[in-house]
């Protein structure tokens, strides 16, 4: 038994007992609007309850020039009238007919009506209506007929042919054999799509990271995005002439005077000593006061370490900035997560252990650790994870915090890396810029 929409039902009932009807008649017969009739017929066609046949009809109609010709007479007819009524001089005729003189002459001669005699035109043939004149009149009456002369009318831009499609619809054999149909709902039809509101993929990645870290005993800390160079670089043992500190890689705040150095006298002294001893130069406070957009979150974790005592496991996650042009793999604004562990007896093994466990919880697959170099840890390691194409992809960097870094002192481990990188790996995203393009098509359906 078929389940039909009320509109469909009315159409079916209306067509019962009829043969094929013109589609335009369905609305009237079924008592529905033209729009409803059109849709209803389509649905029924798809359900094979209606057979639709398309026929093409040609009809002719006047063009504007043709309407004018009907009113005033074809140019050649007017020419003949002028000649018959006595005006025979070529120049006079030219003047009276203007631009139409040429075509009029041509047509009149072809019809055999006139004959030029020097500067004068003589009438010859009869003034009977030509076939195509009659055709033009018929078309003008709306009889739309085709006939002899249509090509000529078309070529002179007087009339044109129009093809229109007509559809006739009739109930199919299947429909005719249906019993009384019931009104109901088509539960198989598609419902309008709904898009649940969602967190952004980076928020989800950060929440997952956060949960893994908190469950491993790490506590979250935060710090400002605007930092003094002291905390972003100097306290982390980055020398003041290091290339990364130049405008190339770091956003310096324009015109900010920097204010007082946001550090205690002890902190300032320790950092100065570390730079003097290690990098062998005199460190400048004025440079340390320069305000920057932080290039990593290490400024937050290291400061926390220096200003706290005892065993610690803390992490910080948030936005960092690098003065670079954005590309498929790099952004000038992105998110980092960084953590530190302080307890007696911590060494590389503990770092490898904690990271292995973290990647396991994040479901990232095979991991390896390679030695590398970072300015504030020594030794330093790089965690590598097998990416989608079997290649090793860099994950987090880590190491034992150098003694010169503020806050270190016996077995302090640090690790950190980019959040976008993890979100890309898990989400199969190839271009990091997608996270900031906010394409709703992606955000809604990923």
């Amino acid at each position, binding site marked *: 038994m078929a389940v039909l929409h009320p509109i469909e039902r009315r159409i079916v009932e209306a067509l019962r007992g009829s043969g094929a009807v013109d589609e335009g008649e369905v609305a009237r017969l079924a008592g529905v609007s033209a729009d409803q009739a059109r849709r209803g017929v389509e649905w029924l066609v798809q359900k094979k309850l209606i057979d639709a046949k398309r026929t093409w009809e040609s009809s002719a109609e006047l063009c504007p020039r043709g309407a004018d010709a009907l009113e005033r007479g074809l140019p050649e007819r007017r020419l003949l009238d002028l000649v018959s009524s006595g005006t025979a001089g070529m120049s006079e005729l030219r003047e009276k007919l203007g631009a139409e003189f040429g075509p009029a002459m041509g047509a009149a001669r072809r019809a055999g009506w006139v004959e030029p005699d020097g500067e004068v035109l003589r009438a010859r043939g009869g003034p009977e209506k030509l076939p195509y004149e009659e055709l033009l009149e018929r078309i003008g009456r709306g009889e739309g007929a085709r006939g002899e002369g249509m090509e000529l009318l078309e070529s002179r831009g007087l009339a044109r042919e129009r093809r229109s499609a007509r559809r006739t619809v009739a109930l199919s054999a299947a429909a005719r054999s249906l019993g009384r149909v019931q009104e109901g709902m088509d539960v198989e039809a598609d419902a309008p799509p709904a898009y649940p*509101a*969602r*967190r*952004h993929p980076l*928020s989800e990645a950060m929440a997952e990271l*956060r949960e893994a*870290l*908190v*469950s491993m*005993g*790490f506590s979250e*800390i*935060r710090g400002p*995005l*605007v930092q003094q160079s002291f905390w972003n670089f100097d306290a982390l043992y980055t020398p003041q*002439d290091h290339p990364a500190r130049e405008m190339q890689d770091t*956003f*310096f*705040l*324009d*015109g*900010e*005077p920097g*204010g007082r150095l*946001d550090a205690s006298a002890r902190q300032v002294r320790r950092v100065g000593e570390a730079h003097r001893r290690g990098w062998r130069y005199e460190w400048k406070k004025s440079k340390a006061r320069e305000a920057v*957009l932080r290039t990593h979150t290490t400024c937050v974790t290291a400061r926390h370490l220096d200003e706290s005592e005892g*065993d610690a*496991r803390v992490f910080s996650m948030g*936005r960092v*900035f690098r*003065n*670079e042009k*954005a590309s498929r793999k790099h952004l*000038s*604004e992105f998110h980092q997560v960084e953590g530190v*562990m302080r*307890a007696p*007896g*911590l*060494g*590389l*093994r*503990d770092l*490898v*252990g*904690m990271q*292995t466990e973290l990647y396991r919880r994040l479901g990232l697959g095979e991991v390896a*650790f*390679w*030695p*590398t170099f970072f300015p504030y840890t*020594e*030794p330093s*390691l790089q965690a590598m994870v097998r990416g989608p194409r079997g290649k090793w992809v860099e994950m987090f960097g880590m190491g034992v915090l*150098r003694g010169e870094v503020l806050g270190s002192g016996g*077995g302090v481990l640090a690790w950190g890396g980019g959040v976008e990188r993890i979100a890309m790996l898990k989400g199969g995203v190839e271009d990091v810029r997608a996270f900031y393009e*906010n394409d*709703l098509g992606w*955000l*809604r359906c990923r």
Partner: protein
Amino acid sequence: MELDLARLRAQVKGRPARRDILNMLPYLGLDIESESAGAVRVEYSPNRPDYSTEYGIAAGLEGLSGAAAGPVELGARDSQYRIRSRRPSQRPVVMGVCATGARADSRMIGQLMSMQEDLDAGVARARRHSSIGIHDLSAVRFPLLYEQSPRGSAGFAPLGRTEKMSLGRVLSETEQGAKYGRLLGPGPVPVLRSAGGEPISLPPVVNSEATAVREGARSLFVEATGFDPRRVEDALSVAAFTLRRAGFSLHLVKSSPAARLSERRLSVRTAEISSVLGVDVSDAEAARCLRRARLGAVARRGRVECAVPRHRFDVRDSRDLAEEAALGYGVQNLEPRMSAWSVPGGRDEQTRLVERASTAMLGLGYTEVFNTCLVGELPGSSGRHLRVADPKGGGGLLRRSLLPGLAATLASNVHRAYPQRLFETGASFERGEPAVEGLRLGAVLAHADAGFSEAKSAAVAAAAALGSEVRASPASDPMMAKGRAARLRAGRAAVGLVGELAPEVVSAHRLRVPAAGFELDLGLIFDGASDRGAHKSNRADGRKRAGR
């Protein structure tokens, strides 16, 4: 840098298989960028300039593979080669070494050039601290003279050119002059002269074409200049080590001060190595690890005495030795350990605040978006924005509000289905001493019937979820339609804004539906709510309060 695997293999004692070499390279601290047939691209650490050529990398691989241990013997001998120095004020120190007994092919020359570039870019800090020049020894006559000469004096045809030019013209008419001439102040410039008086180099800029090293050269002279004898010898030692590995014999050049290229004695406690590794190692094991890292090492009681080759000037203290020991131990051999920790972790207060706000917005059907803090120039109000200097990517202002970014997100989604409801939480910035950072919640909605009322409902609901009751009072804002915007207050504090987007904003963003939005200062709301002790998690349930 690209390494030819066949050539590399030929230089590693024991000739390990290519696959083994590829597996070992990361454990020298080299980043593998890509592999292709017969070659591999690697990136090396800035603190290991000896890894800038295949010669140095081969030495490292020998240690890891066990084919060789301990330092590479330089075998540098004293010689009769001498540089007389008049100590030019601009760059007083000069040192040199000669290398004989091997043949320079084009690939070696290419490698020496990249070694030079890497030294320049790294420890030399763009040739400021040191710069080296490599010459064909057969074109040089000793003793050399190092002095300063006026810029107008006769010079030489610089490398790559045929025309002989004065020293001043070398500085002004060559690429190297343009790049490095700035390191020399006004006045006379340092010049290194052959025994006959012809200049062969204008440090730190460029050498003479006459002493250029070509394919087939059988002896080389390397000079290094700078201010600090230690840094000058650092640079020279990398060149010497590289040439030694390339098969040359080394001859020390006399100068004052002169390069000795001697090893340094340094020691490390075995306990420090064990602590860094997290593994208890014996004195003998520790010494073995250090030898695998191509250092000299002798086990004593509780410590290891090391001989650090001259080119390893990055090894300065016991911690550096501990790192070398870790590399020699093999990072891949570290067994993961989960150290005990009994204190539970937790999320930060601000995180919890943002989560509550986000949950409320999700519940109202708003999808989260992320926009950047740095934005491009905005018409009109840029004077009040914090700026950054010289941005590469274009956006040089720090946003004061989230709403413009949210409106731009609507603009980039005009071809997506409506209704669109979006929210964002994030930082905002204001000028101040120091700069003021705020935490905001912003939201926009767009659809055929979007209006003030819906935006206000959402704003009130979001604030309530954070424990704050907000009231609206008429306000105006350039982004909002006149008469259809309000300030939101919690108590007396202004905590936000709500309104319909102004028609100009809607059309500028090519939206074909009306849009409205709101913004709340989460920090102010949170402070207010916690002052009143009202930041409980399950407050507003929508019941109307009497009198409101």
